[in-house]
């Protein structure tokens, strides 16, 4: 990077921010000068229109276009359900769909279970804050960074030489032979899933820990006086008390898992039978010049997320009625 490049970049950022401020300032200036009559209307336009236009251009219109593109071939001509037929007949793509199902089954259940157990174990223990920070830290870093961290753990050196990847070293300590983990199907998919679990457990732990602290102490004490075991107290008092948060954690992690892209892209790029829908969508649409097929995959992803969207909308409408 030369100094000229750096100056160019700084000019871009400062200029961009200045232009943005100028546009917003101009909007408010014009609003001030707007005629008294209909001022409420103009006020609404100034406040709401910029965001609304951006959301329509950037999300709503493209989502509709993608849904239509899903029924076209790579020339842009309508080809009915061909893309979906292709999807469900190609062994490679079927494998991708299957992998996505495995991801969605394993990641939410395991990370929620481990996160919950950890949250219970460390609750009120000494150094709770540090315990939390250690497990929560992966949530702050990028999935690309996480991918590199774990790729190093899975690294392979020929048998007989010193291993530099921890996993193979552990295998050797137990008397085994080193394995090319990321190239060996199907174990590689599970090893990628481990990375996602590593990231999401911290999230589950923090949310559930907050929920556990909100369980009324009186109920726990009453149960204790009744002579229950800690396990009974956990299943009969704590668990029902945090059910709402559990649902939230599981749906949230499920959505994140359905859309997982960075981990697969960084660690295997979808090779060796590890691809998932989000990665395959990128490969088809932006690498293989098959926008129709890519869009069809995106549509499948959307349909998978849809039940969760509808559920959330229903809960929110109820909530707004209460207000």
């Amino acid at each position, binding site marked *: 990077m030369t100094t000229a490049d750096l100056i160019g970049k700084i000019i871009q950022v400062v200029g961009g921010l200045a232009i943005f401020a100028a546009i917003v300032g101009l909007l408010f200036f014009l609003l001030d000068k707007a005629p008294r009559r209909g001022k409420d209307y103009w006020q609404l336009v100034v406040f709401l229109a910029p965001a609304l236009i951006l959301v329509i251009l950037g999300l709503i219109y493209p989502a509709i276009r993608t849904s239509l593109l899903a029924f076209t071939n790579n020339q842009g001509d309508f080809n009915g359900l061909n893309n979906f037929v292709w999807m469900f007949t190609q062994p490679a793509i079927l494998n991708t769909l299957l992998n996505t199902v495995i991801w969605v089954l394993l990641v939410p259940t395991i990370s929620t279970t481990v996160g919950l157990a950890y949250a219970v174990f460390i609750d009120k223990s000494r150094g709770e804050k540090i315990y939390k920070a250690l497990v929560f830290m992966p949530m702050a870093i990028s999935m690309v960074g996480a991918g590199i961290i*774990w790729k190093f753990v899975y690294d392979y050196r020929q048998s007989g030489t010193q291993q530099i990847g*921890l996993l193979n070293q552990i295998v050797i300590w137990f008397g085994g032979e080193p394995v090319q983990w990321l190239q060996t199907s199907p174990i590689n998919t599970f090893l990628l899933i481990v990375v996602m679990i590593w990231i999401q457990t911290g999230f589950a732990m923090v949310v559930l820990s*907050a929920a556990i602290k909100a369980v009324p102490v009186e109920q726990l004490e009453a149960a204790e006086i009744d002579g229950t075991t800690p396990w009974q107290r956990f299943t009969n008092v704590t668990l029902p008390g945090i059910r*709402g948060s559990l649902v939230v954690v599981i749906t949230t992690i499920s959505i994140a898992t359905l859309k997982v892209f*960075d981990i697969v892209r960084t660690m295997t790029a979808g090779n060796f039978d590890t691809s998932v829908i989000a990665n395959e969508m*990128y490969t088809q649409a932006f690498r293989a010049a098959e926008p129709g097929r890519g869009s069809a995959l*995106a549509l499948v992803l959307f349909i998978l997320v849809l039940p969760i969207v509808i559920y959330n*909308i229903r809960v929110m409408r109820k909530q707004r009625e209460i207000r």
Partner: protein
Amino acid sequence: MSTTPIAATTPDPDTGNRLARGADAEVGPKAKRVKRRLTSRTATVASLVIAVLWTIPTFGLFISSFRPAELIQSTGWWTIFQNPGFTFENYSEVLLSASQSSPQLGSYFVNSLAIAIPGTIFPLILGAMAAYSFAWMKFRGSNWLFILIFALQIVPLQMALLPLLQMFTTFLRPLQNQLHDVLPMIPEQNYLPVWIAHTMFGLPLIIFLLHNFISEIPGEVIEAARVDGASPGQIFFRIVLPLALPAIASVAIFQFLWVWNDLLVALIFSGGTQDVAPLTQRLAELTGTRGQDWQRLTAAAFVSLVIPLIVFFSLQRYFVRGLLAGSTKG
């Protein structure tokens, strides 16, 4: 707490207040006594094991990033005491070396910042304005529109990528080229498409989160300002924004980290050159082409992690809040 369905189901149904206060509830001494008895020795051991398991991968990479190349390639980092060696060379090489074969992360680091700062400020201001209008202006269809925006935050980004890229190529490309002709300092590949994409994708979540908070602002304050003759702009910038500052801080941190850590949007809208591409994109590229250069990869990974980790450890409270509130984004 978490975005949405959440608020209705957790004991504290008030997302806005949650955002302002943080998730930790105070618990009295009685609670401590009861709960401590639940913590047995097995639990302590189990939590220690989990904590160690979760930390070791990062720790190993961190140690390795300071080891000389020959040692990284020939011995495991856990043998550091048998094979001692310490160097800053990996870092100076990935950051400063100008040779073609080195990662040259310096300019990508600048790109990441240049994308993330406007990529946070733009959607935050526009989102706060929209949230204010949803909370305090009455208009037909406002409820319906708000629910639509709320639902949009969960729609996969993948649905929007292709058409948006086509739109950018048709309408934004000529503008960028013109800009380059007038100001040759600004390359034809500039940050504009990435900024706009992040602004568009960030808005639904930001509007939703800030709406909850801004609607909690006492109406009398806004009414009093209006009676005193303040203009709508003054009310918004002098009264609403400062009052909403705690929530804005949380949402800002969340959006900043989201943009900083993003790979997908960068891959599609940055063009992939040193002029625009952020660290994540460069790292993904390096793992693909130089997957065995661990002396570079380890140091490079930590260069990209340093900002998120600083944010995480210094602003953990805000970060947790933003994350709890915004975890379904994407």
